């Protein structure tokens, strides 16, 4: 599938944290052709393995690189049924301002269309009009009476935003869950390139679960794989009116290559060199502390994993109209593949004066 088509399909699938089955199955189908093996771990992360097709040297075990993009998206969960209306909680963090007036699907015993209603402005006091409606005043209306609602819906059922992805001008698209299906697509793009590229390292493409609720899939899959090197792919705030330039990167100008304590400096350097040599546009993205991505969890797994991070520029994160450029996704995939193809031994990861004695 073309990158854009796959992105739209994955984004429209419902895969709220902890319940990522739908996008996982789409992904599994898509990756089959490009992987030697695909498995799903006990937490639900999908691991696609592409073995190196070029030997590093006689008798040497291949090194392993892990690519991580998260499969889950933020969503809603029913907490209580009151007179047929559904109270709900957040799974991950929507901005409360964007919820009123959204169309949703409640995943009960059958999919139920619903809306997050809001009282009309006529009935609000001036004070109420000026403040954001708090969670305990928001309800999902599925149009059912108490009895019928209780038959079809139970506490703990999920609700996802019902949003058809749309194409804006050129290759700009908007929709829900691009955070982080866009990165999953970048990994697929990378696998496609690798099918026709010689590479020495074994590649583990991991679609992680439950990133939005605490990096669960990254923590557990990185522990299992304990790769020699890992690169997480996530989305990052792109330029938009009202946000200072120091906090954003530009849409359509290539992936952000992260820099900071979370990032192994040699991986950053090498990603920059690779992008330059391929003439892929890129942007430097400094992080003074946590990157708030899977990379943050992966780096401190076991004895530590040299970790990098690529960021796909995206506007309006955690709304249902996340906006990005498909070209940035494709560039990210190509950059990853070339980076992998250039990997030989691990020496480049060593810090200055690192002893060769191990104990």
């Amino acid at each position: 599938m073309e990158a854009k088509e796959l992105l739209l399909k994955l984004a429209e699938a419902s895969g709220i944290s902890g319940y990522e089955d739908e996008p996982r199955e789409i992904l599994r189908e898509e990756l089959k052709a490009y992987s030697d093996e695909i498995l799903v771990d006990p937490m639900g992360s999908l691991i696609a393995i592409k073995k190196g097709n070029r030997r590093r040297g006689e008798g040497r075990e291949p090194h392993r690189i892990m690519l991580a993009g998260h499969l889950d998206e933020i969503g809603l969960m029913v907490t209580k049924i009151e007179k047929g209306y559904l109270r709900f909680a957040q799974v991950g963090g929507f901005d409360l301002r964007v919820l009123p007036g959204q169309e949703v699907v409640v995943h009960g015993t059958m999919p139920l269309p619903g809306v997050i209603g809001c009282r009309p402005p006529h009935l609000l006091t001036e004070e109420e009009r000026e403040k954001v409606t708090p969670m305990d005043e928001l309800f999902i209306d599925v149009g059912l009476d108490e009895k019928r609602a209780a038959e079809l819906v139970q506490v703990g059922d999920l609700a996802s935003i019902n949003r058809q992805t749309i194409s804006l001008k050129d290759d700009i698209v908007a929709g829900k869950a691009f955070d982080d299906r866009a990165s999953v697509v970048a990994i697929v793009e990378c696998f496609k390139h690798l099918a026709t590229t010689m590479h020495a390292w074994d590649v583990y493409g991991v679609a992680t679960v439950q990133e939005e609720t605490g990096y669960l899939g990254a923590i557990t899959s990185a522990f299992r794989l304990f790769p020699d090197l890992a690169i997480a792919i996530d989305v990052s705030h792109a330029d938009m009116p009202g946000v200072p330039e120091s906090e954003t990167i530009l849409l359509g100008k290539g992936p952000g290559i992260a820099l900071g304590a979370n990032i192994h400096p040699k991986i950053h350097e090498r990603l920059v060199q690779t992008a330059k040599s391929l003439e892929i546009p890129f942007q430097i993205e400094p992080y003074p502390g946590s990157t708030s991505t899977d990379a943050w969890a992966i780096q401190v797994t076991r004895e530590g994993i040299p970790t990098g991070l690529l960021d796909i520029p995206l506007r309006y994160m955690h709304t249902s109209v996340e906006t990005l450029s498909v070209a940035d996704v494709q560039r990210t995939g190509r950059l990853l593949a070339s980076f992998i193809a250039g990997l030989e031994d691990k020496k480049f990861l060593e810090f200055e004066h690192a002893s060769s004695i191990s104990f």
Partner: protein
Amino acid sequence: MLLQSLSEACGLSGNEAEVRNLILKEVQGLVDEHRIDSLGNLITLKRCSSTGAARPRRVMIAAHMDEVGLMVTHIEKSGHLRFSKVGGLDDRTLLSKVVLVGNDRVPGVIGAKPIHLLKEKERHQVVETDQMYIDIGTSSKEETERAVKRGDYVAFATRFSRLEGGLVKGKAFDDRAGCAALIELLRGRGSYPSDLYGVFTVQEEIGLRGARVAAYAVEPDYAFAFEGTVCDDLPKKKDLSPTTILGGGAAITLADRSFFADKRLVKLLVETAEKNGVPYQFKQPMVGATDAGRIHLAREGVPSVAVAVPCRYIHSPVNILSLSDFENLVRLMSLALVALPTLWPSP
């Protein structure tokens, strides 16, 4: 003086190379082995005196190399630098300070609007970091970019010097004081009765991250964290805790926000101090967090304790400590390491 060169070295979380290289030079002849892991932790091993046991008792002592500071996030058209904080810095201490930008140590100043131009209200408001900027004397973005990059680290340009009464002032005593103490400990004896892993960790200030992976790798039986810790002994209106007292001796942590000290190790330290007349004090519980907070959770758990040199004004551009506290920490730990096997037979 070792503490001086450590204090004046720049090493923010994630960029500890300068400090690491300095330490490595000091400890190379004192330890049996060393290595640097994938995060940049410097892990050294000083083997124990007797090698009777199949697996000698392992003691890990951690001191973190990183310091708090700033990072360049954006370069304005005017050439000014916008920045974010690396670690927990207090906005109130930043204005009107001299800083060093990047590994080339480009000097700059954190400017402030003159008092003449402030509105009455503004005079009493703390300026937040996102309203501040660094001026390196350039007048355009292009000119700045010849010297500085987005993502460069920024450290305070504080010089180390001696004050009266055996005190010294400098920057980054949290935790270069701990690093210096650990080096002194490695220098102090040919060997200790346990395998001593002296670990100089990274990224403590942004979430105890280096210690976490180092403790997993080392698998210690017991662990100590050396710190430069909060000291708040200036006069107060109320009768409240000074957290620690400058000159009051090595400060033992019983509990902080990140862990409860192992009661047996606290007993070891207290008994050793009392027996040998080494001054010590207890730090105010539940203040701050240390590498011990991650070390004690490594694998199946590691009994841990933190011991510190009290430092006034930590997490600001200039700190003060008493050399007597520093010496007492080294002495206490040196004695405690020798006493550890008698109080606590093989693991």
